[in-house]
């Protein structure tokens, strides 16, 4: 069984975020593999293992030359990596991103496409489903458990009330939530092996998408960016055994008690 995992290299979420002069998220610093994607990579490795073999291909898109996050995915055990990297991709919206990923994934062999429910930098959360539509695949989002029996996919999908058991025939696309599996750590052996694993870099021209993606393909624009009205911090006390009393007194002033 062959699985494609969509991954994104993002600025470190622990570092302060900012916009660049074009109101795009500033990605000039070091990029890392989005932690949300480590669950998809792990899920893919486990499913391929259970199926008795197959390839895990990580596919990504970016506007820079940074591939450290992809090397990380290879170190975890992915077979090969593909990144569409092109300056013209800067300013891509979610649909453009899906078009680029779809074109890159069509060149791969796959039975299943995995993605995170949303990235940890943009939080748009629609790219995987747009991608499924462009690839002509059924999709099951918000998976908290995934299994494959023959050519049938079984997924526990989160709902407002609990979860649904959903089935679909392969090939299909699934978005996994954090917590679906426990991601492994890269071993020293894995990190060394990753250095010689195939990493293909494609351009927008390689995919025949010139002028359709990136800022050229975006059909929305930012009107304004302003500091949001912020809440003022109130009083802060160090607990000296009276912390609970302070909470009770506060609840009294707002008439909860």
């Amino acid at each position, binding site marked *: 069984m062959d699985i494609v995992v969509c991954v994104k290299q993002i600025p470190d979420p622990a570092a302060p975020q900012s916009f660049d002069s074009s109101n795009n998220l500033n990605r000039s610093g070091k990029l890392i593999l989005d932690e949300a994607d480590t669950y998809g990579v792990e899920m893919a490795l486990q499913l391929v293992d259970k199926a008795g073999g197959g390839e895990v291909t990580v596919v990504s898109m970016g506007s820079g030359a940074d591939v450290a996050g992809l090397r990380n995915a290879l170190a975890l055990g992915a077979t090969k990596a593909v990144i569409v990297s092109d300056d013209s991709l800067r300013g891509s919206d979610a649909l453009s991103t899906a078009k680029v990923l779809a074109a890159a994934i069509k060149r791969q062999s796959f039975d299943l496409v995995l993605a995170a429910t949303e990235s940890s930098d943009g939080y748009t959360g629609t790219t995987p489903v747009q991608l499924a539509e462009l690839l002509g695949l*059924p999709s099951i989002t918000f998976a*908290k458990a995934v299994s494959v029996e023959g050519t049938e996919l079984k997924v526990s999908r989160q709902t407002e009330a*609990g979860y649904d058991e*959903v*089935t679909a025939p392969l090939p299909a696309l699934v978005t996994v939530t954090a917590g679906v599996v426990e991601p492994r750590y890269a071993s020293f052996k894995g990190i060394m092996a990753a250095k010689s694993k195939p990493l293909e870099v494609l351009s927008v021209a390689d995919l025949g998408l010139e002028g359709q993606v990136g800022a050229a393909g975006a*059909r929305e624009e930012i*009107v304004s960016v302003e500091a*949001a009205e912020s809440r003022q911090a109130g009083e802060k006390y160090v607990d000296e055994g009276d912390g609970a009393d302070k909470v009770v007194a506060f609840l009294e002033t707002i008439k*909860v008690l």
Partner: protein
Amino acid sequence: MTLSTLWVLAEPSSGSFTTTSLELLTHARSLATNVVAITWGDGGSLGALAGEYGATTLYDVGDLKGALPGVPVAAAIQALSESGDAPDALLIPTSYDGRDVAGRLSARLDRPVLTNVIGLSDEGGLVTEHQVFGGSMAVKAKFTGPGPGIVVVRAKSFVAESAGGPAAAVVAAPAGDTGATGSAVVANSHVEERTGPKLEEATVVVSGGRGLGEASAYTMIEEVAKLLNGAAGASRAIVDAGWVPYSHQVGQTGKTVKPLVYIACGISGATQHMVGMKGSKNIVAINKDADAPIFQIADLGIVGDVHKVLPALIDALKARS
């Protein structure tokens, strides 16, 4: 008004529409002269409710025969909008199925989608409002190409109010054959039981995070919530860790809550979390780390160990009841 028609995805939920759907219908009628709702399943019998909240027409995709709504509902909307009846924009609630419909429709119509919207206004065209960077920055955006643009709006962005309108005309809008893309079907549904008020509706929400240290400590959160007749919530960190079910999660990916008071216990205040609770009327934070970002938005901050403060709080609350 520069907007003539807005369509609203009205998600059916146990004999009604979801609250977010009603919020969107309410706001849509202040922006456009004509508001049309689209629903499926049990929603087809809710023409009176759709009309009460301002819709003139309720398109009913009908029984989905177990299929996940994303594909068939998007296919039906595509057919409607390509038959010459396209709206200026389509408003969709942020929800599991709502996001599926938005993604499918965006790719089918080749139209852009704006998500995480918390405000909508007519400024010579539809302008969306978003909060980014943990709510510290407000961004306004608009569509530039041909419509209809697709807008996915977060819960509690608007207040639902009945307009007392006449029943909407219910019009069948079948999906037709969706082929392989529509082949994901629900085999079984599982409901996870909860007691007490619903998280989104409770006047008091008590939430726990990683600072609790271990899953068993979450019982303290539940106990405080119960004593205050509130609901127990959680940060993404402990939901991911499997300590509590996802239905408890407050934040960007979880629920949006705006209670009278939100009590954050052992929650540092990641961007992800703050977006879901910073609209609370009052915020109390209890955390060991005096520099935790949560204190920047807390009306009352207690720098202390939840394992000491919460048992004392439980005793104090019990003594009063």
